[in-house]
């Protein structure tokens, strides 16, 4: 057992650090959930692509560096440490791309992957529906066959679609076999956000931004070439994204290590005599450290040919709760000034913004209640049922 990095790995991290130091915007970009902020974040994606840092683990032909898993984690650590902008391309790069690599056609990979890395195609996800949240398999939006044009007609409503207001394309699940129940008869579609028949209605969030939207589909045509995986096989195809979102790819350890470092800086200017306040700062550091080390364990498992599986649920509950605890500690240290937002010169306004984002963590990517069910049933082997859930 060791945590030693090879010379090549250290050189890779140093190269990333140097590039980020030279290129990360000195002032924070406006929120990506505003029109101007979205455009600025898109430009940042293009900048990343120029340096070939958008998706380091991808093959060169799609804009990557064919970097290994260790290098990818190192890059993420450097990325967060540098204070670089949030990735507006995240839905595509972290959620859709792994599925394209696994289930996509060559044509789909060629059309979409490179365009994901340079910000020219930003993707929105379209999972939830008004009646299908945690119970995602109860999807009712439909896909009807259009043999004449060689494709499908999408109808229905999707909601909580992140990045949808300004995104270029979307991906999601639709019921292609109305007779099939639950997880069967679903198909995974890719569609343009400006398709005829598709209406996007922004939803204002509690923080005032419009990070997500409702989507209304009225016979939106999607050609066969934009079906991902086989028709009717959408659930199985989609679940590989759910695993990615919960596990490694969305929440690299760098994010929490960087936040814990900022919390320590905050403590050093806002110390309190209260030993419990100090303990809370220490606990945030301990948990960020636990997350960092756990990730190296996961990397080792994957390198040995293992998979994350239901462990992704353990990971998701831990990071989402750590994120909230860390930000609550920061707000406690700031005291009455914590509620101030966006005041010029008030660098601390970011803690409140990030706190508001953190409290959505236990909801998105599968609620923590669903994750705890998965942990209990798939990792601990406890029996299903007993709580009204339908078994399929």
């Amino acid at each position, binding site marked *: *057992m060791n945590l030693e990095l090879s010379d090549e790995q250290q050189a890779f991290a140093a190269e990333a650090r140097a590039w980020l130091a030279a290129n990360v915007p000195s002032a924070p970009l406006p929120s990506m959930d505003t029109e101007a902020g979205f455009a600025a974040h898109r430009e940042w994606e293009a900048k990343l692509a120029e340096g070939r840092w958008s998706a380091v683990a991808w093959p060169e032909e799609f804009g990557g560096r064919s970097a290994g898993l260790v290098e990818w984690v190192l890059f993420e650590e450097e990325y967060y440490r540098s204070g670089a902008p949030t990735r507006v391309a995240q839905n595509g790069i972290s959620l859709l791309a792994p599925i394209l690599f696994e289930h996509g056609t060559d044509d789909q990979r060629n059309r979409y992957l490179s365009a994901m890395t340079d910000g020219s195609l930003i993707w929105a996800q379209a999972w939830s529906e008004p009646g299908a949240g945690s119970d995602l398999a109860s999807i009712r939006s439909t896909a009807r066959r259009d043999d004449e044009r060689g494709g499908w007609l999408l109808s229905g409503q999707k909601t909580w679609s992140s990045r949808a207001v300004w995104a270029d394309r979307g991906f999601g699940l639709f019921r292609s076999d109305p007779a099939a129940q639950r997880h069967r008869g679903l198909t995974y579609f890719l569609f343009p956000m400006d398709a005829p028949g598709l209406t996007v209605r922004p939803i204002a969030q509690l923080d005032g931004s419009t990070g997500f939207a409702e989507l209304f589909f009225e016979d939106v045509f999607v050609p066969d070439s934009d079906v991902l995986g086989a028709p009717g096989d959408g659930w199985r195809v989609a679940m590989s994204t759910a695993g990615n979102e919960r596990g490694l790819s969305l929440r690299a350890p760098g994010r929490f290590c960087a936040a814990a470092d900022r919390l320590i800086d905050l403590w050093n200017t806002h110390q309190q005599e209260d030993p419990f306040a*100090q303990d809370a700062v220490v606990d945030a550091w301990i948990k960020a450290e636990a997350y960092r080390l756990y990730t190296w364990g996961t990397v080792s498992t994957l390198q040995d040919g293992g998979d994350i599986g239901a462990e992704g649920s353990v990971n998701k509950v831990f990071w989402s709760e750590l994120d909230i605890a860390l930000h609550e500690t920061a707000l406690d240290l700031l005291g009455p000034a914590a509620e101030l937002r966006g005041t010029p010169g008030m660098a601390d306004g970011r803690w409140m913004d990030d706190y508001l984002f953190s409290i959505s963590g236990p909801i998105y990517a599968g609620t923590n209640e669903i994750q705890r069910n998965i942990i209990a049933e798939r990792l601990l082997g406890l029996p299903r049922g007993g709580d009204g859930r339908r078994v399929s």
Partner: protein
Amino acid sequence: MKFALSEEQQSLAEALDEIIESAGGTKVARTWAEGNTAPGAALWSQLAELGLFGLSVAEDDGGMGGTAVDLAVAFERLGYHAVPGPYIESAALLPELVDSAVRSGILDGTVVATAAVPGLVPYALDAAAASRCFVVGPDSLAQASAGPGTASVDRTRTLSELTAVGQETALDPAAVEQAIDRATLACSAMLLGAGERLLEEAVSYAKIREQFGRAIGEYQALKHQLADVRIALTFARPLIYGAALDLGSPDGARSISAAKVASGDAAALAARVALQVHGAIGYTEEHDLGLWITRVRALLGAWGTPRHHRSRIAAVLLTPAR
């Protein structure tokens, strides 16, 4: 970069499990608590034969030349089986501090040694079962005699104050600090093992115990508590391995302290949830669950309280409060 146990380390864990289980498993702890230390002493000899006491001692000094990770692997199993006796003292704290004659006795199992570390570990464990007692000072070691034993909440533990007798041997303060950190690491691994066993017992029980016509493990109220234990233990484990790798390095102190805090928190949660899942049967003397519940409570305050370890991390990471 490979942050995973080797096959040898997994085999070590299996070997320990086999020896302890064939010695009677938790029966060893029960007879020890009743005052019959013979089965515990027999197990001690068998584990000495396996090389437990020389696990992290250099081969030149008669040890196995293993790493602190090996030690953590072994102590997790000791915690899992609630093995009684001053193992932390003999296998983790003292081997690097005592003279070579005592060390070879510890390594071959003929010397059972215990110790107190004034200011951190005020009471020595199981002095009556030990052949040698030591007081470990910041830069010294002294042989000691033990006062009368006092019962612990953990009925396998008897604690005594020590009085130094004879001459002090001067020691390198850095060596003492590292030995105490190694003992703290062993204690953390024991907590992790106890926590894993508590979870396992609770999950097994939740699958068979029925109420309202269903296994209680079907109910989300219990599922979610057990899931939280799984999460806490899963994230304490890498801190223990990370601390083992950092032992003796400049980051050693904070890593060891993080491991102790996290394993203590996780094991304490496991104890509470395991008891809750079992209900009244878990609260009986007859049931084994109490062995780990009381062991965890005892170890939480041993080898540095949570406050001690959080303060030690703060001293490294944070500017002191004004």
